């Protein structure tokens, strides 16, 4: 190594203004336009483009399936502004909202997972750990089971309607986790432990509510608790879309700071980043995304856990990518819903499919991590 030092001397001769420097850094090709600049990552871009194409295709197949089948080509023609009137009606009014809700919910969960795992620097974290999903579940069940019978708090929740109640429940649970986990800063490990504790407590509340519910309420509650895209209309699409439009730009701007946070708290502070403020803001954004997704479609578990890691493997890099995770999440939920409706038949909730796919993956992650830690 000492000999290598000598060979570099040529690169360092300082001649005032005309310092000789190598003009490029290997592996970091620039992409520049005016004041905007970024590193060109061909693999990431390819994953996003291919993913988007797959999403459109799977979405079209899903829209085509039903009592009145439409060929994929015709669905695409309608989506891009053609097609007959009856086809247009079936596609845009009846079936597109379901697929769009699925895609947006999946995208929101994918981003929420990518943020949470990026902040915690831990592939086993997801918004589920933040208590969002179970908090939303308890709130939704309170509305379904206790509406009319409960006290004023439940009445207030019920007045919000199921989706908003779920949103509020998710946000409250996450806030509780943050408050309990905060102690002179936010330690990722303590955060996960507190989150798990709160989730378990909330799950037992959910079980209790299911026990005291009558059969019809319990049936409704169980469907909601599995996460379903049945009977979703434009009124379900709009709220998630608005949240995504508002939150994603802020998220993109803030995740830039994870570049510094990835290197540990001290290095990040040395690079001028306010560590705790950044972490809290990012987790807040993840919670809002996950809670709105859960409000729209119920708890679709494992998407936020699995998708960021899969996207990371596909796109490469050192942290789950945001946009690729959004698209992969959308593909997973839309494809899961298609699978549930066609292969499994009937109206199987999409959440069942993601759990069936996600649980083995979680086991795989746990086993791999334990091996690595003991190695």
């Amino acid at each position, binding site marked *: 190594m*000492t000999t290598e030092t000598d060979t570099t001397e040529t690169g360092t001769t300082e001649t005032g203004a005309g310092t000789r*420097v190598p003009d490029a850094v290997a592996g*970091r090709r620039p992409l520049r336009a005016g004041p905007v600049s970024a590193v060109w990552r061909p693999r990431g871009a390819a994953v996003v483009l291919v993913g988007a194409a797959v999403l459109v295709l799977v979405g079209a197949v899903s829209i085509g399936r039903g009592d009145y089948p439409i060929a994929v080509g015709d669905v695409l023609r309608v989506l891009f502004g053609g097609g007959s009137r009856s086809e247009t009606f079936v596609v845009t009014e009846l079936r597109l909202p379901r697929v769009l809700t699925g895609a947006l919910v999946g995208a929101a969960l994918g981003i929420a997972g990518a943020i949470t795992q990026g902040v915690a620097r831990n592939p086993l974290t997801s918004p589920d750990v933040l208590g969002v999903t179970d908090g939303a579940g308890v709130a939704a069940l309170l509305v379904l089971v206790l509406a009319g019978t409960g006290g004023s708090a439940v009445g207030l929740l019920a007045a919000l309607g199921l989706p908003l109640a779920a949103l509020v429940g998710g946000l409250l649970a996450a806030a509780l986790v943050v408050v309990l986990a905060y102690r002179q800063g936010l330690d990722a490990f303590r955060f996960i432990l507190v989150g798990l504790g709160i989730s378990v407590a909330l799950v037992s509340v959910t079980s209790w509510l299911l026990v005291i519910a009558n059969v019809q309420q319990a049936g409704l509650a169980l469907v909601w608790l599995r996460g379903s895209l049945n009977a979703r209309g434009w009124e379900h699409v709009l709220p998630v879309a608005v949240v995504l439009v508002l939150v994603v730009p802020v998220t993109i701007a803030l995740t830039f700071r994870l570049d510094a946070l990835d290197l540990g708290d001290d290095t990040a502070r*040395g690079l001028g980043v306010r560590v705790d403020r950044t972490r809290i803001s990012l987790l807040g954004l993840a919670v809002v995304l996950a809670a709105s997704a859960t409000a729209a479609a119920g708890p679709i578990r494992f998407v936020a856990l699995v998708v960021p890691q899969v996207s990371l493997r596909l796109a490469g890099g050192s942290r789950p990518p945001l946009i690729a995770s959004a698209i992969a999440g959308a593909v997973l939920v839309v494809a899961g819903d298609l699978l549930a409706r066609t292969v499994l038949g009937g109206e199987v909730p999409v959440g069942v499919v993601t759990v069936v796919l996600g649980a083995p993956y979680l086991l795989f992650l746990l086993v791999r991590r334990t091996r690595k830690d003991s190695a």
Partner: protein
Amino acid sequence: MSAHTEDAVEHEATTDAGTRLRAEGVRVGYGDTVVVGGTEGLDLDVVEGTVTAVIGPNGCGKSTLLRTLARLLTPRHGHVLLDGRRLDAVPSREVATVLGVLPQDPTAPEGITVADLVARGRHPHQRWFRQWSAEDEEAVAEALEWTGMAGFAERTLDTLSGGQRQRVWISMALAQGTDVLLLDEPTTFLDLAHQVDVLELVARLNRERGRTVVMVLHDLNLAARYAERLVALHRGEIAVEGTPHEVLTEDTVRDVFGLEARVVPDPVAGTPMVVPIGRYVT
């Protein structure tokens, strides 16, 4: 050197000519215990263009002092001044364009490449929409070249040896383009050859680039050789400070480190060299 920082901290009424970093009556502690500063508070001046080494026995507060100078810890009393301005009064990001810090045990994300890691040193100069400007590219390319790591740019960090990794971290600090550099035990976990290698790099940074360096070092002989100013810390207070010849005397080594030793001139550099006297092997 100053080209990197001309848009950064304005040089307001600097307290002393040439003082870049100054601790005034600083007392730092965790919980109820005061680790640095004792009862009086600690004063320290870091002069422009010098290499200062902070030495002292384990637990004397070396790292705490360095972390305080780097604003990673907030002193309970007193304050740290950078170019005459209180560190807590300047936005952290702005400080990061003048003052760089390499912590003792920095963590690298799994699978990150050398070039990507070094580029993260540019963070204070970047915005979310400006993540790879021509200046960034130039600074990173130069830092890689300068530390001899350009050939490793596309390798992932986990494929490198400990000494190479330390060079990468120093490249990152270099790419940050700061005049003042604080290094917390940059030679730990390295064998002697790589310790010398890293310290040679620090010396070059100082001589060729005029960087002001403060580092925590364990090895007294290397500290004496590579730093022109030594600060010996004992129980959180400065026991002695000055040139290596002033600080590294047999009395100081006994008082500060509790070690009986002979101090002789280093046969290579002429700087003081501490040779311990054992009880059984003399």
